């Protein structure tokens, strides 16, 4: 990259810290989570967000926590930072179980979390001020960190005067100045535009490689596979509902990593497959997928948050490519990230409009028909497809059994509340409402919060 070439011209500066991260990652265990679970209160009992997490972070390594939204990766990061209490299990820092906020970590936030009423320098000084460091020494250390992260000249600016990239640099400087053992990064690049993010990633990796990085390990939460492969030494892929460690990948590539190398591509494809694929289950020979064989219910088959328009768009795009295309390529082509495209893929699968085979998304017969249909036809096809979706089915059959064909939303909310948090219940019903309305199976009156069977709709 041109930018990184330019950056190389700048002479390295001493970070003012003595310790070098020992490499490779065989250093002391800095953070250790054992048997960690986290659940939030639901309607009847606890709803698990994370279960059975065992994780170690050692000096000298960068670890990625990778997962879809809802996989609990941010919650796990906050458990490690001592900001969120685990429901069971322990988190230890250098062997000592945490009792409060982790003294050895500092956090970089997705939304920057800068105090808009303080200048850049005052923001960077916050952590030192909290430790009671005298003003003069504080300023000295802050200026050094500002310098290191490439913010010279911005000391007296207010955050709102800065671009997103510069703001996140302040976030990094603020965390680095306290020289934490472990730097916690919560999707630090996802609020930035593509070029800015790329540049900042590059600079950080250079700092890390040069040994000037005043921390000994980094934990990076992300949903961007490429980012994880590009930056980290170990990728921990979290599965959803509840979050478990699905697989761990070591990244043995040298920095700076070449995106075009076959090894890089191969690893991305492997991680992609892990994230898009169903959780591993032992398959009985002669029978198809055991998960499919099991009865699908609204509880074990959550509706992905996907709108009808998005589904149609994706189907048409795949159809254009001959009804089959590589998912990773498609996402890259559209400039989308996993979080954007996976719910759509899940929805296609659920509706039997498409299915994932290997790295590819393949349209089914129904999917192909759906892609070519006009509005009325596509509604008909969609109605057929959606009828077997557990939650939609539950709503239609309940409405049919009801004498006046109406039911309060609260009824379904109560049913779902046993398996989802109230926020998730809202999402589930929202998607079911959207799909059912489009398929003209039932209508929903938002004022009265009532579902009503759509008599005029396509007959069942």
């Amino acid at each position, binding site marked *: 990259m041109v930018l990184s070439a330019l950056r190389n011209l700048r002479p390295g500066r001493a970070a003012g810290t003595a310790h070098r991260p020992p490499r490779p990652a065989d250093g002391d265990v800095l953070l250790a989570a054992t048997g960690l679970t986290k659940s939030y209160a639901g309607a009847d009992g606890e709803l698990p967000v994370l279960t059975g997490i065992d994780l170690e972070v050692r000096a000298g390594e960068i670890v990625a926590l990778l997962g879809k939204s809802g996989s609990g990766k941010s919650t796990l990061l906050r458990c490690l930072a*001592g900001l969120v209490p685990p429901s069971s299990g322990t988190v230890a820092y250098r062997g000592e179980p945490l009792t409060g906020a982790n003294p050895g970590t*500092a956090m970089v936030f997705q939304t920057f979390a800068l105090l808009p009423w303080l200048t850049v320098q005052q923001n960077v000084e916050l952590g030192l001020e909290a430790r009671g460091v005298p*003003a003069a020494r504080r300023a000295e250390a802050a200026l050094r960190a500002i310098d290191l992260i490439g913010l010279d000249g911005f000391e007296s600016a207010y955050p709102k005067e800065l671009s997103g990239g510069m703001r996140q640099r302040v976030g990094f400087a603020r965390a680095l100045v306290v020289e934490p053992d472990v730097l916690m990064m919560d999707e630090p690049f996802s609020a930035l535009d593509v070029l800015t993010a790329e540049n900042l990633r590059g600079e950080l990796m250079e700092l890390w490689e040069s040994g000037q990085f005043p921390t000994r390990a980094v934990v990076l939460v992300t949903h961007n596979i490429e980012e994880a492969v590009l930056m980290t030494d170990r990728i921990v892929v979290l599965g959803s509902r509840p979050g478990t460690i699905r697989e761990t990948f070591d990244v043995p590539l040298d920095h700076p990593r070449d995106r075009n190398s076959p090894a890089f591509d191969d690893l991305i494809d492997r991680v992609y497959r892990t994230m898009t694929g169903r959780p591993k289950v032992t398959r009985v020979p002669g029978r198809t997928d055991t998960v499919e064989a099991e009865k699908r219910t609204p509880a074990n088959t959550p509706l992905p948050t996907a709108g009808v328009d998005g589904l149609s768009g994706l189907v048409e795009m795949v159809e254009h490519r001959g009804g089959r295309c590589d998912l990773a390529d498609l996402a890259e082509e559209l400039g989308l990230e996993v979080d954007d495209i996976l719910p759509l893929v899940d929805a296609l699968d659920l509706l039997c409009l498409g299915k994932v085979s290997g790295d590819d998304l393949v349209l089914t017969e129904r999917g192909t028909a759906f892609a070519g249909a006009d509005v009325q036809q596509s509604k008909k096809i969609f109605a057929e497809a959606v009828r077997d979706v557990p939650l939609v089915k539950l709503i239609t059959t309940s409405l049919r059994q009801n004498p006046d064909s109406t039911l309060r939303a609260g009824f379904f909310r109560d049913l779902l509340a046993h398996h989802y948090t109230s926020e998730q219940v809202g999402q589930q019903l929202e998607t079911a409402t959207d799909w059912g309305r489009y398929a003209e199976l039932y209508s929903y009156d938002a004022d009265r919060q009532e579902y009503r069977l759509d008599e005029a709709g396509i007959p069942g």
Partner: protein
Amino acid sequence: MLPFPTGPAAARTSLPSRIAGRMSRMTWVDVVVAAAVLVLLYITLRVGQGTTVRFSTSQSVKIDTHPSQLPYDAARSLLRMFVALTASTVFTFLYACAAARSRRLERILIPALDILQSVPVLGFLTVAVTGFIALFPGSMLGLECASIFAIFTSQAWNMTFGFYHSLTSLPRELDELSRSFRFTRWMRFWKVEVPAGAIGLVWNGMMSFGGGWFFLVASEAISVSNKDYALPGVGSYAGAAIADGDLGRIGWAILTMAVMVIGVNFFFWRPLTAWAEKFKNEQSEAGEIQRSVVLDFLRRSNWPRLLGRLLRPVGHGLNRAGRVLGVDDRPLAPDHRRRRTGDIAFAVVAGGLILWGLADLVGYLSDRTGLGVFGEPLLLGLATLARVAVVVVGSTLIWVPIGVRIGFSPRLTRIAQPLVQVLASFPANFLFPLAVWFFLRTGLSIDVGGVLLMALGAQWYILFNTIAGAMSIPTDLREAMDDLGVRGRQRWKRLILPGIFPSYVTGGITASGGAWNASIVAEIVPFGATTLTATGLGAYISHATATGDFPHLIAGVAVMSLYVVGLNRLFWRRLHRLAETRYAS
């Protein structure tokens, strides 16, 4: 009483916290707390009453109504207002923090606040005067404190609610920032929480201050237990001029009042709101930016920098001292058994105290008058309720069309909005004498005229909020309606009324609260030798205050609070909920 928030800022910060956020949790807690407040009122009364004997020797103050006296009086009044504002701010910090930090205290403090702001402040005045005079026997300080207390009670609740809301809705990442970087509690408060709530605090302060003028006027000259008390101030000046029936001097007083209201706005609140812009949390997009000539002027001078440099060591010292409050951290594993035991102990002690006081109160009332004392105010309340309803409906019919017209025209808005803001701040009770003079000339009954007096102050909230609501209707919506040919009735029904509804409800709540409060001074008005008295709960409370009839006063205040709370819960809160769910943009 209900506070006086107006304008978009107040609507944004304080209202949802009060009305919407606590819709579901309003149950027996309210009843308990209402009882607690009643008990507190009663205790203060008893204590104050026991000490009035000593007080009987002091003589009433005679007010000099020569116009040259006015600047001094104005200064005294202003001082009172600002002392009250300072007290309200300190109270806000302490009370809101206690409520936001302690789970147990929160359950008592927040419902208490809700009830407190429904209690007519002027009913408190008697309590305050007797109490404070007992605290400082033979000194003006007692009266001074009582007046400040009256202003304080009109400001503090609203500010506290707003700040409590900003504390509890602190953005999650700021909370995590504070804990992750191990801020001290002192740092969290001053570097994160106060700045995050600063804009709401300043706007709420400004609105409450505007409402405070009314109580300044009402509290400077007051008669309690058949004795007249007066403090030097614009309010008492006007009171004396009214007693003399001197319209010229009343005019001077009105002019002074107007100058004070506008001056404070220009020299204090405008600069403060403009300065508070720096605490806006949105990182880039700036909507409407507050500007102030005074602030620009100050910023150009060197004084702020010099003052900053002088004060920096003080700040450092305070920060260091603040470290004793400890680090902002939450234990990861709370001890559930200890917590439960603490909860139970707290509930038993608090509940016991309230019960004991309630029993004593009932005993007191049934000894003196019997519990039938509540019957009369309940009936009279219906008369006042009717007046309040007429005020709200009348102001709506008159001001909503006008407000919409103003709000749709940027040019008119620029002229009208500051004007209405000043009109809303201007203490309406100041104008009562003129109105009474008019009633006496035309022979209009005070039973009807009282409605006009109550409307004098209350109507502006409806106008002000309607303007804000009309302004918030996007221009492209109006253009779309033009395009489709939606006009007349249909336009009102489909666009304008739904568009202004949320703002209007805010204005309506405030106007209705203001009208209840005003009824205490509007249903019984002296002018010269004549005193006009209407039938109503306000006059009942006023009368009980003047004669020192405590059982009737307690009954009157309690019943009026009941009416205000009832009206809010049964009517305004429903409208507010509708506005939030259906018409919020």
